């Protein structure tokens, strides 16, 4: 397969803001005194609790699971006592069922946690099972259950695995650090995912603004067969699944379709490392790397965080605030979600916590669309954001749909470039929700 081009059409060069954390090694956090483990931290059906209030749990013990097709179990990241099971306020102000565990500080490991042995001895189905049992979901932010992605629907086949290490969101450096510090595990993860999907070829895509990560990964893949590191132009949204596939394979995922429709499966590099970790140690997904950053923090850091740790605890790990934060964002500045409170726990899909101060938080009122065409020029899905949002604002959802509202990947590029500060993605997102709701009714 020939790598035809190193970037896609559209997109925008956003400022990176990665300087404050990209050279900081991943730091393990202190054991939190309590963790709040959401029973619904993935795309799909929520888990049922497998423990009761008062139960003792150990590290890696499965505490929630479901029979539903699209789900991922959750495990205790600490040893200690279950003190509460019930709804808890999560990212974005939504309440989710969650299990609160008080740590006993001993970190006793559950006896179900045992290494799985070597990759050679495991079948494709073994691997898919172990990935499911480990509760692994996409760690890039989408939190889609990984095992589900690995099984192609009947009649379809994968031929290429893409490991996404592009990390195009400004400020975030978790994946970059992972590739610099654990390149061997990333490659092992890629090999596992290749075997689990039955593909012979894999690409590891990294933006060319991260030369150290590229060098580390290139060294690590030198012995692996069929895996190739591909530097890509640093441009937002380079890490978007459809754009990656287009860049690397020259194939366009059809509108309304999935990567598997063009034979591709895309997995975040952090996910690959999590898979490798589970194979080697048997430990399910109970922690992840989170970039906690922004001007208000004393020491912006890349932290290895136990799932369920509260954001307020992470602020302490970063030395607290040196200036007043005006905005808290879970995720990156382009697609992340602003929060009301620091009292929310980290879930599997949280790749970053970003604090902005008042100066960085623009609250400019939108002006009229001047039809500059910048949103059109830069939309990576080649949509006409100005018209979709105008239709959405006017309640003309059929027109919004006809103009491709459902193809919008909500990357935020259009709003970013709009000189009139119009809320384009916001209204397109509303239109999408409305269109989907109406289609369901029919």
């Amino acid at each position: 397969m020939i790598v035809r081009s190193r970037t896609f059409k559209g997109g925008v060069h956003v400022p990176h803001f990665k300087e404050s954390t990209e050279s900081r090694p991943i730091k393990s956090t202190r054991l939190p005194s309590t963790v709040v483990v959401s029973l619904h931290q993935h795309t799909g059906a929520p888990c049922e609790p497998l423990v009761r209030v008062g139960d003792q749990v150990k590290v890696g013990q499965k505490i929630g699971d479901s029979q539903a097709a699209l789900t991922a179990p959750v495990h205790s990241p600490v040893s200690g006592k279950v003190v509460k099971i019930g709804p808890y306020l999560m990212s974005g102000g939504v309440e989710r069922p969650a299990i609160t565990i008080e740590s006993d500080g001993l970190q006793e490991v559950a006896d179900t946690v045992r290494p799985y042995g070597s990759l050679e001895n495991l079948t494709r189905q073994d691997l898919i099972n172990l990935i499911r049992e480990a509760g692994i979901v996409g760690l890039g932010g989408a939190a889609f259950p990984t095992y589900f992605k690995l099984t192609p629907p009947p009649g379809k086949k994968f031929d290429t695995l893409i490991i996404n290490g592009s990390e195009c969101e400004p400020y975030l450096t978790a994946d970059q650090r992972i590739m610099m510090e654990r390149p061997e595990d990333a490659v092992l993860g890629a090999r596992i995912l290749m075997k689990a999907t039955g593909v012979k070829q894999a690409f590891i895509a990294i933006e060319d603004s991260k030369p150290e990560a590229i060098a580390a990964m290139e060294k690590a893949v030198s012995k692996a067969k069929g895996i190739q590191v591909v530097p890509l132009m640093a441009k937002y949204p380079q890490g978007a699944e459809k754009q990656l596939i287009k860049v690397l394979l020259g194939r366009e995922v059809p509108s309304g379709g999935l990567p598997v429709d063009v034979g591709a499966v895309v997995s975040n590099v952090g996910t690959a490392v999590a898979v490798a970790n589970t194979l080697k140690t048997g430990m399910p997904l109970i922690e992840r790397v989170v970039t906690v950053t922004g001007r208000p923090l004393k020491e912006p850091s890349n932290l290895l965080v136990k799932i369920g740790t509260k954001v307020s605890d992470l602020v302490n790990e970063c030395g607290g605030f040196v200036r007043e934060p005006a905005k808290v964002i879970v995720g990156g500045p382009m697609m992340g979600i602003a929060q009301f409170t620091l009292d929310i726990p980290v879930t599997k899909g949280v790749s970053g916590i970003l604090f902005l101060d008042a100066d960085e938080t623009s609250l400019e009122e939108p002006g009229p669309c001047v039809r500059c065409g910048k949103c059109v020029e830069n939309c990576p899905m080649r949509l006409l954001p100005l018209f979709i949002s105008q239709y959405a604002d006017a309640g003309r959802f059929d027109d919004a749909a006809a103009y491709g509202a459902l193809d919008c990947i909500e990357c935020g590029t259009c709003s970013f470039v709009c000189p009139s500060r119009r809320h384009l993605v916001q209204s397109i997102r509303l239109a999408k929700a409305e269109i989907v709701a109406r289609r369901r009714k029919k």
Partner: protein
Amino acid sequence: MSVNQFIVSSSPHIRSPISTAVIMRDVIFALLPASFAGVYFFGTHALAVIVTGVATAVISEAIIEKLTHRPVTVGDFSAAVTGLLLALTLPPDLPLWIVAVGAIVAIGLGKQVFGGLGHNPFNPALIGRAVLLASWPVAMTTWRWPITEAPWFGQDFDVLTSATPLAAMKLSGVKTPYLPLFFGSVAGSIGETSAVAILLGAAFLLLRGHITWRIPGFYILTVAILSILFGQDPVFHILAGGLLLGAFFMATDYVSTPVTPLGQAIFGIGCGVLTVLIRLYGGYPEGVCYSILIMDAATALIDRFTRPRRFGEVKHSA
């Protein structure tokens, strides 16, 4: 840390620093070389025309918005751009009161009646110019030699009138050489004569990413190709008259031109065809102003029928 002190708004949480005001300010910067060239060649009255155009446009926008109880938006510099563009398309000796009328018309009729910035279907500056041309045709077509050239004649050069290169070509078949056309030492509108000054400003806008090459590129290319087909000198037609100013600064007006890439190409080609036809067969020697206004009228239609193929969109055979 109290709970409700954080700002909660929708992503993206960072915005490009390029605001509408920044773009308009840059357009003004980009027009400065052409403005300086105009003042250099035509003297202080040209400067007075420019100042009058800009000031009247800004003041009338503010007054109209005040009278209609809308927020005053002169801070976005778009009125200043309109006034400046209008002035640059006017003859250097035009009486200042006519300039002022033109600016009021441009803002009032060209922009504010439609609801202000973003809503005008036509380029406001060109509306102003078109109305002036219809109302004061003589004053609007009275040209003179640049002051830098006239002294040879040993007369009071201020009153010397001259045909523009296009008029000279059309009426008597006299072709002005390239070099004066390029530098601007020819009779013409204040900001239209110096190709080099316009190109300098255009390069700045292209580099800043405020305009793309599509509309001006297709416009100029079309004029060149058609000139050749009609047995004319393409270089002359590109350098003479208001083509360059029109192509880079009027036909790229955001509000009144298409936003789709294909639409922009069609728009440029349309302008080019109309310009050549008007120049060769129309009643005026110059066709840039009208060709752009005519294409402006087609913009909504063009946008509707030139939707790009969406990413992953499967082509339906019709």
